[in-house]
């Protein structure tokens, strides 16, 4: 009997986690940096979707496809984790592109509310981001925006997978990336 109850609750849990896909409140992050270099120079560094070597948190990038919609890149992080992202929009003229996370490895497994939870490499869900350059006459504004949900999609998240964890992690990714991009472009 116990086994049946366990089985049923696991099945129910599985269904709820799908159904709740948009239950929690979506979060946002936006970081901007002004670089003392022309936009063309900055664009040259970031324009290849399959090359994210400008970001200090990323060890290597592999890509399927070119700089056009549908290209899929796999980022391998310094700690060995992977993030798979699909290019959703690419605009050479506007010097911008947008992408979405489609898959991630997990950084660890925790137990929460009696269930095992895999904490993804970036503790978010349904993550979409865009990066764009604005030519400021010899200088460049780089704007990096992201919209996402916390990693835990049911009620009462564990602290590793709540809004704060998601916001802190995303802010760090955007900030460290932009600081390094500035360093590279101003060389």
């Amino acid at each position: 009997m116990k086994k049946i109850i366990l089985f049923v609750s696991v099945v129910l849990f599985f269904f709820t986690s799908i159904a709740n896909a948009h239950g929690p409140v979506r979060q946002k992050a936006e970081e901007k940096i002004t670089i003392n270099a022309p936009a063309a120079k900055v664009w040259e560094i970031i324009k290849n979707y399959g090359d994210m070597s400008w970001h200090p948190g990323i060890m290597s990038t592999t890509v399927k496809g070119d700089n056009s919609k549908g290209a899929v890149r796999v980022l391998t992080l310094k700690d060995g984790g992977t993030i798979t992202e699909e290019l959703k929009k690419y605009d050479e003229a506007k010097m911008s592109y947008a992408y979405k996370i489609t898959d991630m490895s997990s950084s660890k497994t925790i137990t929460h509310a009696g269930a095992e939870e895999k904490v993804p490499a970036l503790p978010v869900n349904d993550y979409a981001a865009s990066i764009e350059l604005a030519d400021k006459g010899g200088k460049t504004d780089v704007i990096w925006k992201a919209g996402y949900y916390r990693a835990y999609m049911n009620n009462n998240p564990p602290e590793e997978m709540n809004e704060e964890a998601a916001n802190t992690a995303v802010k760090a990714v955007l900030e460290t990336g932009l600081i390094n991009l500035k360093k590279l472009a101003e060389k």
Partner: protein
Amino acid sequence: MFSLNCHRTILGKKAVAICIATAFLSTPLAAQPFAYRDVKLGAASFAYISNQLDDSVSVIDTATGGVVDTIAVTGKPAGVAVAPDGSKVYVSTPEAKGFAVVDSKKREVIARVAVNDGTLGIAVSPDGKRIYVADWYKNNVSVIDADSLKIIRTISVGESPSGLVVSPDNRWLYVANRISNSVSQIDLKTLTVKKTAQVGTHPFGLTIDARGERIYVANVQSDDVTVVETARMKPIATVKVNMLPYATALALNDSRLLVTNQDDGSVSVIDTETLKEIALITVGTKPEGISTHPDDRHVYVANWFDGNVSVIDARTLKVIDTIQTGEGSRAFGQFMGK
């Protein structure tokens, strides 16, 4: 205020056009007071924009194009439905497990109604007597008496019900079931599901034409809009739009359908006769809620990421104004009121 002068001297369509032309030439667009929007209506009209990350609702006076008030609404306000007489605004608050009733004169919350854990989609009947609230978690729609604020009935629908719309004759309620890829048709006399139509992948926002003959539902996953004929509850067309279409609105005598493309930062415009996309208008980042002004011409779009509202002229297919609102503007539902 030249536009007010225009207002008083209008004799026909020609005069309106002249006023607008003058308005465009005389002052920069952003600072433009849009009094001409009310030419046909002749009365004040407000847009109520839920700002989910700010726990507030911005009240836009469409005559001036400015936010005239910001109402505190806790519980992460998401869905909006304005009573037909404009006296009340119903705002779903998923984190407060229900919805808030806002008095539009006092501009404050006068009641809170507990419904369920996952309230998102909300609509009000054309006679103002009932409120319908979809529950994302419980897969049902609650029917609430607008006077007593008591739940009359709870109706099971498909999985993760989202957008709701009532037919203009107050006979049917249509519900987009996101996970079930379907639209339920609820008979409002018997309060039971009569028919269900399969649509595209993950339908979310929907709208209905003035005759109640067609519904247009945005499918977030399949990047298209399904057109459903209500008489038979059968899809009659699928129109490809852009990335992640979220919600829909009709304008200009139902001749134009406008669709927010959340991941593209744009609004697709569809000719409802040919059922082809005729324009793609760039708005802000992550556009979500969309509603048409009572003048049937200006369409308001809440840009979630930017925390502002784009105003589209459906005739010229241009963005004529951008109004700052608050963090996480969603305004999911019919947010335009008298």
